[in-house]
């Protein structure tokens, strides 16, 4: 039976590249996002390349939606074998303007959104005695401080705690939980002048040893390497 991977925020950027990489690796990919047009386009790209994918709209801020999407996937395909919890936002907000609502909004997506999806998928994963979760943190949550992105950095640091706690809690059930903390990846997020480095993103090369910011397609295999090898039967 084909292994199923569910990827959140898979319509663009790292999520999109991950979806394509998993499809190439033989998984059935459930592309989820709030961006329907982009999600459909990713599914079409995968299908055109001979892979297997479907789009399901999922706002990770909604427990109801997370439960429903996971239930629908399990009904069609059985237990989800892998989750890439990638959905996230990074808004630039100086502290004086950082309202409770803006803080909570980022946490609701970047941190709580991971928990909601994993919690929904856990019973079936446990019953199957196998599974893998990859949560996407950020270099800004583990190694650097990012000015005017305190809520984002805090949420991404929180991902590390979530990963460690779940890893210990689920290891004996055969479910591995890991995080990845990417550096400067050339995504719409990085190239946003309003919220990140903008068109000057390549100036990051002045302080990065490897000296380039890279396209997200270079990233996903590190996610794949954290997941079980698909077994065709």
């Amino acid at each position, binding site marked *: 039976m084909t292994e199923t991977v569910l990827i959140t925020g898979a319509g663009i950027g790292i999520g999109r590249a991950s979806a394509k990489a998993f499809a190439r690796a033989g998984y059935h990919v459930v592309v989820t996002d709030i961006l329907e047009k982009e999600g459909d386009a990713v599914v079409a790209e995968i299908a055109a390349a001979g892979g297997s994918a479907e789009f399901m709209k999922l706002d990770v801020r909604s427990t109801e939606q997370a439960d429903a999407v996971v239930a629908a996937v399990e009904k069609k395909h059985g237990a989800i074998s892998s989750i890439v919890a990638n959905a996230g936002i990074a808004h630039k907000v100086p502290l004086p303007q950082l309202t409770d609502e803006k803080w909570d909004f980022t946490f609701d997506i970047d941190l709580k959104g991971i928990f909601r999806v994993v919690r929904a998928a856990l019973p079936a994963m446990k019953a199957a005695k196998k599974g893998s979760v990859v949560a996407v943190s950020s270099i800004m949550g583990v190694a650097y401080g990012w000015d005017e992105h305190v809520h984002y950095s805090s949420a991404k640091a929180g991902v590390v705690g979530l990963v460690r706690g779940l890893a210990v809690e689920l290891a*004996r059930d055969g479910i591995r939980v890991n995080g990845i903390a990417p550096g400067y990846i050339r995504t719409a997020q990085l190239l946003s002048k309003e919220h990140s480095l903008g068109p000057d993103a390549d100036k990051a090369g002045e302080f990065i040893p490897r000296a380039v910011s890279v396209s997200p397609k270079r990233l996903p295999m590190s996610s794949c390497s954290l997941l079980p090898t698909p077994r065709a039967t």
Partner: protein
Amino acid sequence: MRNAIVTGGGSGIGRAIAHRLAAEGYNVLVNDFRREAAEAVAAEIGGNAVACAGDVSQEADVAGVIKACETSFGHCTHLVNNAGHVHQSRFIDLEPAEFDRMFAVHVRGTYLCTRAALPAMLRAKQGVIVNIASQLGQIGGVDLVHYSAAKAAIIGMTKALAREVSADGVRVNAVAPGPINTPLVMALSEDWRNAKAAGLPLGRFGEPEEVAATVAFLCSPEASLFVGQSLGPNSGDVML
């Protein structure tokens, strides 16, 4: 052309790395300070492996290893600095000779092999170096101050060299394994091993092949963004 040198490849993790890289199509030079061990592993692998005995802490031996690789396959494209040994001692009883030997093999050995292999990699603007550290270099181990310090030095070396040469096409990373079922660990008491395994999130020690998989990943182009990292195949014992 992928020509790997695996130091300390005669047993345990090094042997598994040599087998894994050979299975992936690399030419593999198996180094060990015990000639018979190196030759046995090269013979197990067969066609695309050669053995070269040598003590990595000795400059002349290291030169011999590099030369043997060039003669057999061409210049070393992938260097796995794995050679090492374990010695336990209370710090208060730790003799300078044991301390020096620990640093000679792990730190000087990694330095000498890297120094010898690096020029050809820089000329080719391409190369991969993987240093085998240990999670004890991250958290420390009782009766293992010299071992822990040497492994921590390897992690520091990995980070600094990665900063220095990555823009020139050479990726340098480390692997910091947890408890692995190797002859070194199996020599410890069963009670200790059982208690240690029970405390691991995964509930079991790793196998050398599971560390080799991490090394193979770091050696591959799939790891193109990994620079100066220490990956931890450790059953969840250390989470960074």
